[in-house]
Structure formats: C-alpha cells, structure tokens
C-alpha cells in the first residue's frame, strides 16, 4: 500500500538526528514536525526569520506579527530567536541548517529538482526554495512518486525549469525511499506491500536495485 502524506512525513522524521537545525517546506514537509522521534531534539528554522518555531497557536492566541514562511500563524518556544531575512538566508547559505525537507514537481537522477514554475501556467515565484536547495547540507524531497495522471516524477532529466542542480540527496515518496547517487536513483526501502516491480515501473529515471530491498518500518 502506498503511503499517505502523514506516513511520508513520519518516515522522513526518522532521518532527524539530535541537535539538527531543520527547515521544513510547505505541505508534507510541515507535517514532519508532528513525528519527531522521542529523545531527538531538533530546532525548526523558518526562513522568514525565526529559529525555534513552535506549534500553531491555540484559538485566540494568534499573533499577526508571528508567522512562518507559509504565512501561517505560529508560536515561539523557550529559546526562540528572531532575525532579518539576510541573516536567515545567511545561515542557510553558510551551511548551518543541517537538513531541508521540501516538495518537488520533478527530481532527476542527477539530483536536480524542479518545483517552482510551470511555464505559461504557474508564475508564483521561487520564494526561498532556490536558496535552500543551493545551500543546505542535506536535502530530502517529500513527494508523490507519480503525478495525478500516473506519470513518473522521478526522471532521467527534469522537463520543468530547475530550482537547483545536483542537490537532492534523498527522496521519500509514497512508494519508496530513494537515495540519489552518482549513477542514479538507488532504491533503499519500499512502502509496506509495494513491490520493487511497481517502483521500477513508476520511476522513469534510472533505478538501481541492489540486493534485497526492505520494507519501511514505522
């Protein structure tokens, strides 16, 4: 069975290490915050200028001056700190953020990522995505393996305008955990009940399957 969004987030959360500073993108990545493992202390960075992002406020406690990069109301936690956007992207560019999790429309077998523009159709802008993918030490993409038409989003080469080149390290999709290696997509884990053949079928880029591929454990 393919994972749902919550399960993708849950699987990604297993990649967190104690002491990590983490930037979570909009969508599935945001959900990762709900599954931080016991005993692991991570600090969330929001690129609009907050380190130590807390949960959403209780009703009535929302503060218009306190939002995340998705423009949602959030809260602080003890030890939070605010800063300006230049410092925020400065710490990202300097490699101080250990892990970035974000969504993608396409990922190539070289680790290129496209997630900001569909020519002639979508012109929202890249926001902070280009800065994040260019600079974060470790980038995990949370995505569906295929688009609604069933076409693979893991390609030999991206067809959409790129957000960044050779930057994605790992992909957690609804079907698989995949590492991006020099020679292609290396299959690490399968979603429970999903076969290697199905993953092969739905991966347009080069998929490397070496040895027994374990099922994900939750």
């Amino acid at each position, binding site marked *: 069975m393919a994972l749902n969004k919550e399960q993708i987030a849950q699987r990604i959360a297993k990649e967190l290490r104690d002491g990590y500073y983490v930037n979570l993108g909009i969508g599935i990545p945001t959900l990762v915050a709900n599954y931080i493992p016991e005993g692991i202390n991570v600090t969330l960075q*929001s*690129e*609009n*200028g*907050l380190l130590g992002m807390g*949960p*959403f*406020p*209780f*009703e009535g*406690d*929302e*503060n*218009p*001056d*306190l*939002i*995340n990069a*998705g*423009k*949602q*109301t*959030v809260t*602080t936690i003890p030890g939070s700190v*605010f*800063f*300006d*956007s*230049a410092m*925020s*992207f*400065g710490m*990202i*560019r300097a490699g101080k953020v250990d892990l970035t999790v974000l969504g993608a429309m396409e990922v190539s077998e070289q680790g*290129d990522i496209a997630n900001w523009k569909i020519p002639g159709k979508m*012109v*929202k*802008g*890249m*926001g*902070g*995505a*280009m*800065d994040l993918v*260019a*600079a974060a030490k470790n980038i995990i993409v949370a995505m569906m393996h295929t688009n609604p038409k069933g076409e693979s989003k893991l390609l030999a080469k991206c067809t959409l*305008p*790129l*957000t*960044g*080149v*050779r930057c994605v390290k790992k992909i957690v999709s609804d079907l698989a955990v995949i590492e991006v290696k020099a020679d292609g997509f290396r299959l690490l884990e399968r979603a429970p009940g999903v076969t290697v053949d199905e993953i092969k079928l739905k991966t347009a880029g080069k998929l490397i399957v070496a040895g027994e591929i374990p099922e994900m454990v939750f």
Partner: protein
Amino acid sequence: MNKVVKGAEAAINDINDGAVIMFGGFGLCGIPENCIAAIVKKNIKNLTCISNNAGVDDFGIGLMLYQRQLKKMIASYVGENAEFERQLLSGELEVELIPQGTLATRCMAAGYGMPAVYVLAGVGTEVAEGKEVRNFNGKNYLLEAAFDSDFAIVKAWKGDTNGNLIYKDTARNFNPLMAMAGKITIAEVEELVQPGELDPNMIHTPGIYVHRIFQGTNYEKRIENVTMRKRN
C-alpha cells in the same frame, strides 16, 4: 534636522511617477500599511516595486496593482494574488522573480556599500541567465548587484525621533534590510518615542539609515493564513 513628519501623506509627498520603491514586509506581515494607503490615494503611477511579495488582491501592494500603479514588480513569491497573475500574463506588468535570499542580500549589500555579492541561489537555473558565474573553493556562485532604489518604506514596532527602529517578531523580515538600502528611507512605527527611551543595545536599525519617521494609525495587521490548534 527633524526627521519626524506628520503622517503618511507628508512622508510620501515627494514620491513621483516612475519611482523605484522598496516595501518591507513578508506577505502581509510587517508591511507599511499607512504609506501604502497614501500611495494608493495619491495614485502615483509607473512605480517599480521591490518587495518579497505583492500583497493579496485587496490588501497591501495588491491595492496598487488593482489601480495599475505598478510598471514593474521585483519579488520572490507572488502566489496569493489573482490580479497580479492576470496583469503578468497579459503583459501589462513587468515582473522579475528572484530568490528570496538573493532579494534580502541585495538589500543588505546596498546598505553596506557592497556593489554586488556572490550567492549560491539560482546557479544552473534560469535565474543565472546573463549573470556572472564564478567558482570559489569548488562551488559556483552568481554575482548579484546591490539594489538601487529611490525610496525604502518600512514598518517598525517602535522608533525614536532620531530614526532608531525596533521590529517585532517575524514582522522584522526584510524591513531592516530595506531600511538600510533606500536613498530616502521612510519608517512608519506603531509607537514613536523620544531619544533615550529605547535601549541602545536593542535597536535593529540605527537612525543614520532613516530619513523620515512617523507614528502610523489604524493598523489592520491582516493575517493571511490563520492556522490554529485545538485546546485539549
């Protein structure tokens, strides 16, 4: 030398058609509501706006869009604005989309007298087209020019009559960077105090960067995405 002006209308008095203006704020958070309203009222045209976002359809910079006051928009993300998309696709509005960190750093560069900066964002993408790519220590960087703007309009939480500013929470965002970057910087504040009332250790923007200041009124502080959790 008195930096204090009476209000938004006086503050923007000499902004004319064709000006290049920076607006602080991230989404609707920390935007200079009073000055935006005054520019909308005065209906100044052919503006080039540098701002992370373009407001929403009926608030913030969106109000200027609706009145077709903008010739060009320089932003990183404009996804909340249908009128924006319409003007862009119809060719009425010139748009330059740039990475958010690059936007921030190009403001800072202007405030720090650095003519251009090397950044990582956009290498290998269409953002790099026509720009210098240079390798330092095995990594490729893009050379990005400091912004050159006629006016910077920012919103702070508190300010004193010397122009010293303090921002609150994530309403800080681009405000201190743009405050440093304008040839003329206009600050509207929620509370204007006398020199000495702000702790000199806790000021985000030194007054040397600020040319005009006033206490704004009737802040709406609209929230784009009210997101809450349930009390147990």
